[in-house]
C-alpha cells in the first residue's frame, strides 16, 4: 500500500519475507512482485531457497515475517485451499495429480474447486455438463483432449505435465505458479511448452521457477536471482546477463 | 490418604508402566524399523505367560519357566515373522491390521485348544516372596519391586544395545533409511527377523512376569496390547525412549487415577456418585491423556525421525 504508484498494479507482491529453519535462513528478506501480463522467472542455484519460497507463496509453509499480498490482499494466514480459490494456480515440481482418476475427472475436480461447490452429495458428476464441458475445453487448450479418458497414472510424464497445466488453468487463475515445468520434458517437449507459455502470458501472469536457462531467457520479462535465500538481482534478461554478481554467484558455475 | 499408601500406589503405577514398556518396546521397534503395525504382539505376551506357567509347573522352577518363556516367545516371534509377517512389510496398514488380527484369532483359539478355557496360575518364586520395607515405613511386595528393577535394567540394556552395538547401529539405520541399509550389504531379512524376535522375547517376558501376579488365560494379551499402542503413540512411534517415558506416564496416570479421582469427586459429591463418576473418568484417563497429547503434538512426545 505504501508506494502505490506501480505496486497497485502488481498481482503478487512479496515484501521482506523471512523464513528460517534453525540457524539456516532459507528465505532472507525477499521482496519481489509479479505484474500483469509478465512472466517473472525465479532462478538460483540448488539450495538457493526456491522451493521454500514457493511453499510460502502456495501456503504450505508459514513465513516467519514479511507479507504476501495477492491482488492487494494479505495472504499470509490463508490456507493452501483458500489461496487457490483466490486465484493462485500452480503446477508442481513432481507432477501431482489424482492417479486413479482419468485426465478428464482430474480437470473436472479443478473446475469444481473453482466453482467452490464441493458439498453437493447427490448429483453424479458425470451428468454435470457445467463440469464436463469446461474440463474438455481445458484439455483441448493444452492439447490433451484425445487422452481425456485415460487414467492419470497411465499418462506419460509429459502428458501429466500437460494435465497439471489444464488443472491449473481450470481454476481460472489470476496468477500461475509454475515449479520447474521443463524438468524431464526433453528438448522437443521443452520447445513446445516454451511456445505455449509464451502465448499464455497474455491470459495470466506467471511466476516461473526454472532451471532450463534457455527457456528462462527466451520467456522471461523479468528475472529474479535467489542465492542463499537472498535476492541478489532483479531485472530484465539483459540486466541479469550483464550483472556481475549474478555471473559470479550463479552463471559462472553453470559454464 | 497416607503417604505410605500414596507411595505404594505410585510404585504400583511404575511397575505397571514397566510392564507396558516391555510390550511397547517391541511394538515401537517393529514399527520404527519395519513400518509394521502388529496387533498380534499381545499373543506373544500370552504365549510367554503360558510357557512360563507350564514349564514352571512341570519343573517346579519359576526361573526355568522364565527362561523358557523368553526363548519360546522369541522362537514364536521368529516363526511368525518368517511365515507371515515378512509378506506384510510392503503392504499398507490396512492389510497389516487385518492379517495380524487374523493371527490373534489363530493364536488365541489355538491356545484355548491346547490348554482349555481355565486360567493357569503361576506362583511367585520363594526368593521373591514377601515384602520389603522402604524408607518412610512403606511396605512393598518384593516381587513387584523386582519387576521394576528388572524392567529398568532391560531398558538400560536396550539403550546400550541400540546405541553401542553393531546390531543397534543397523537397527537405527533401518529406521532412517531402508534402501541405504540394504545397499550397505546388511542382510535386511535377517535383521528384520532378529528385531521381531527381540520384540517378541520382551513381550513374552512381560507376560511371564505378570503371570505370577494375575491369572494366565486366553485373551490376556489384547488389553495390554491396546495400552501398549497408547504408550507408543504418546511416546512417538519408533522411539524406545518415548516408549519408556510414555509407559511410565500411562502406568502412573492409570493407577493413580483409579485411586485419586473417586476421592477427588468425594470432596463435593455424595460417596456413591463420586465413586461412579470418579471410576468412570479414571478408566478413561489414559485415553484422554493420549488425545490431549496428540492434539498438541500429533507425532507424539519423542517422534523418531522428526
Amino acid at each position, binding site marked *: 500500500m505504501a508506494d502505490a504508484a506501480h505496486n497497485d498494479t502488481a498481482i503478487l507482491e512479496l515484501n521482506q519475507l523471512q523464513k528460517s529453519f534453525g540457524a539456516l535462513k532459507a528465505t532472507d528478506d525477499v521482496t519481489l512482485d509479479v505484474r500483469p501480463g509478465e512472466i517473472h522467472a525465479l532462478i538460483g542455484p540448488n539450495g538457493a531457497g526456491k522451493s521454500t519460497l514457493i511453499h510460502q507463496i502456495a*501456503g504450505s509453509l508459514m513465513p516467519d515475517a514479511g507479507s504476501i499480498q495477492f491482488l492487494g490482499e494479505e495472504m499470509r494466514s490463508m490456507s493452501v*485451499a*483458500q489461496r*487457490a480459490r483466490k486465484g493462485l494456480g*500452480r503446477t*508442481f515440481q513432481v507432477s501431482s*495429480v*489424482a*492417479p*486413479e482418476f*482419468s485426465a478428464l*475427472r482430474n480437470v*473436472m*475436480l*479443478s473446475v*469444481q*474447486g473453482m466453482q467452490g461447490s*464441493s*458439498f453437493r*452429495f*447427490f*448429483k*453424479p*458428476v*458425470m451428468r*454435470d455438463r457445467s463440469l464436463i464441458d469446461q474440463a474438455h475445453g481445458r484439455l483441448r487448450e493444452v492439447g490433451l483432449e484425445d487422452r481425456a*479418458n485415460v487414467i492419470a497414472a497411465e499418462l506419460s510424464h509429459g502428458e501429466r505435465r500437460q494435465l497439471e497445466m489444464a*488443472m491449473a488453468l481450470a*481454476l481460472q487463475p489470476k496468477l500461475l505458479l509454475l515449479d520447474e515445468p521443463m524438468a524431464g520434458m526433453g528438448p522437443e517437449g521443452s520447445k513446445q511448452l516454451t511456445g505455449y507459455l509464451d502465448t499464455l502470458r497474455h491470459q495470466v501472469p506467471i511466476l516461473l521457477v526454472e532451471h532450463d536457462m534457455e527457456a528462462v531467457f527466451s520467456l522471461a520479462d523479468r528475472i529474479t536471482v535467489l542465492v542463499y535465500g537472498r535476492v541478489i538481482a532483479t531485472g530484465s534478461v539483459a540486466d541479469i546477463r550483464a550483472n556481475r554478481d549474478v555471473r559470479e554467484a550463479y552463471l559462472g558455475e553453470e559454464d | 490418604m497416607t503417604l505410605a499408601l500414596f507411595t505404594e500406589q505410585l510404585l504400583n503405577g511404575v511397575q505397571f508402566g514397566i510392564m507396558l514398556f516391555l510390550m511397547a518396546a517391541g511394538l515401537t521397534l517393529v514399527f520404527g524399523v519395519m513400518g509394521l*503395525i502388529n*496387533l498380534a504382539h499381545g499373543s506373544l505376551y500370552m504365549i510367554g505367560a503360558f510357557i512360563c506357567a507350564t514349564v514352571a509347573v512341570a519343573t517346579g522352577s519359576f526361573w526355568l519357566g522364565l527362561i523358557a518363556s523368553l526363548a519360546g516367545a522369541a522362537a514364536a516371534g521368529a516363526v511368525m515373522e518368517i511365515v507371515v509377517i515378512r509378506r506384510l512389510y510392503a503392504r499398507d*496398514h*490396512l*492389510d497389516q491390521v*487385518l*492379517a495380524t*488380527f*487374523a*493371527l490373534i*484369532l*489363530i493364536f488365541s*483359539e489355538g491356545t*484355548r*485348544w491346547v490348554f482349555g478355557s481355565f486360567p493357569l496360575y503361576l506362583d511367585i518364586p520363594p526368593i521373591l516372596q514377601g515384602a520389603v520395607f522402604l524408607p518412610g515405613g512403606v511396605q512393598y511386595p518384593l516381587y513387584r519391586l523386582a519387576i521394576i528393577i528388572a524392567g529398568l535394567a532391560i531398558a538400560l540394556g536396550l539403550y546400550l544395545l541400540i546405541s553401542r552395538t553393531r546390531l543397534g547401529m543397523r537397527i537405527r539405520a533401518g529406521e532412517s533409511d531402508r534402501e541405504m541399509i540394504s545397499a550397505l550389504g546388511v542382510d535386511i531379512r535377517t535383521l528384520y527377523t532378529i528385531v521381531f524376535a527381540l520384540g517378541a522375547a520382551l513381550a513374552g517376558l512381560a507376560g511371564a512376569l505378570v503371570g505370577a501376579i494375575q491369572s494366565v488365560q486366553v485373551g490376556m494379551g489384547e488389553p495390554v496390547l*491396546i495400552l501398549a*499402542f*497408547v504408550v507408543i*503413540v504418546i511416546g512417538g*512411534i519408533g522411539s524406545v525412549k518415548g516408549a519408556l517415558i510414555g509407559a511410565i506416564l500411562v502406568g502412573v496416570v492409570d493407577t493413580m487415577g483409579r485411586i485419586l479421582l473417586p476421592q477427588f469427586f468425594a470432596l463435593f459429591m455424595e460417596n456413591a456418585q463420586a465413586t461412579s463418576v470418579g*471410576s*468412570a473418568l*479414571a*478408566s*478413561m484417563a489414559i*485415553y*484422554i491423556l493420549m*488425545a490431549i497429547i*496428540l492434539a498438541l503434538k*500429533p*507425532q507424539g512426545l519423542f517422534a523418531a525421525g522428526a
Partner: protein
Amino acid sequence: MKRETIINWVLGLGLLAFPFAALYLDEPFYVTLATRVAILALAGVGLNIALGLGGMVSFGHAAFFGIGGYVAGILSQHAFNDEPLFTWPLLISGTSDMPVIWLVAIVICALVAVFIGLITLRTSGVYFIMITLAFAQMIYYFAISWPSYGGEDGLSIYVRNGFPGLNTLDPLQFFLICCAALMVCLLLSARLRDSRFGAALQVARQNDVRLAATGIAPLNIRLVAFIISAAMTGLAGALFADLNRFVSPSMLSWQVSGEIMIFVILGGVGRLFGPLAGAALFIVLEFYLGGVTEHWQFFLGLILLGVVLFVRGGLLGVLAGRRDHG
C-alpha cells in the same frame, strides 16, 4: 451391464430372497441370520465411506456402532419404565418408536463424530488408526464403569421397538426393515461416491496436496465424510440392539471395530457392495465353522489370513476385477 453391477444385483436380491427361502424350507433361524448380515453390512457401508472412499483407516467405528445401540437401549428403557430422560431444561421422555430412535442415533453419532474427527483428522497414517481406537476404548470403558445403564452387564430391551404400521416382532418384517435401511444407505453412498463431494473425497485419499491446490480444503471434506460414515454405522448399531434386544459394552469393543473393518476388506475396499459381500461371507463362515468345531475362530483366522495374503482386492476384486474409476 458391467460385471460388478450384475454381482451387486445378485448380492442384493440374494439377501432379499434368502429369508423367504428359509421360511419356505421351514428354517426360521436363517431369517435372523440374514438380518444379522444386513445390519452388519450396513455398519460396513458406513465405514466404507471413511475407509474406502476417503482412505481414513478408522479403527474405532465400534464407538458409533455401540452409541447407536445404546441410544436404542436407553430410549426404550425410559419408555418402558415410563421415566423421562430429562426433566430439565426440557421434558424429554423415552420412546420405543424406531424412526425416532434412528434419528436420535444418527444425530448423536454425528455429533460425537464431529468431536472425534476434529481431533483425530489432524493426524494421519498409523497415528490416525491408533487415536480412533483410543477414542472407542474411551467410550467402551465409560460404558463399563457408568452404572446407570447396566455398566458391564449391559441393558436389555424387553420388547423390540416398534415401527409404525409394521409388526417388528415378526422376524421377517424386522428383516425387511433392516434390509430397506441397508438398501437406502447403499443407494445414498452410491450417489455420494459419484457426486462432487465423492470426487473430492476420493482425491483426498489419492493426493490431498493436489486437492488443496484445486481450492478444496481436504480437512473439511474428510470431516464431513467421517460424520456421514459415523451416522450410518450408528444407525446399524441401533438396529443391532433391536435385533438382539440387548446392548452391552461389547458392542463398543475394539474387536467389533476390527470386525467391521474385516467386512469392508473381505468384500473389497471401496466397492459399493463390498461390505455386504464381506459381512455375508463372514457370517456364513462363522455359522458354518461354528457348526463343525467349537474352535471355529482358529479356522476363521486361517481363512482371513489367506485372504489378506493371497487374494488382493477382496471378494469383489476376485469376482468383478479391478476397481473402475472412470
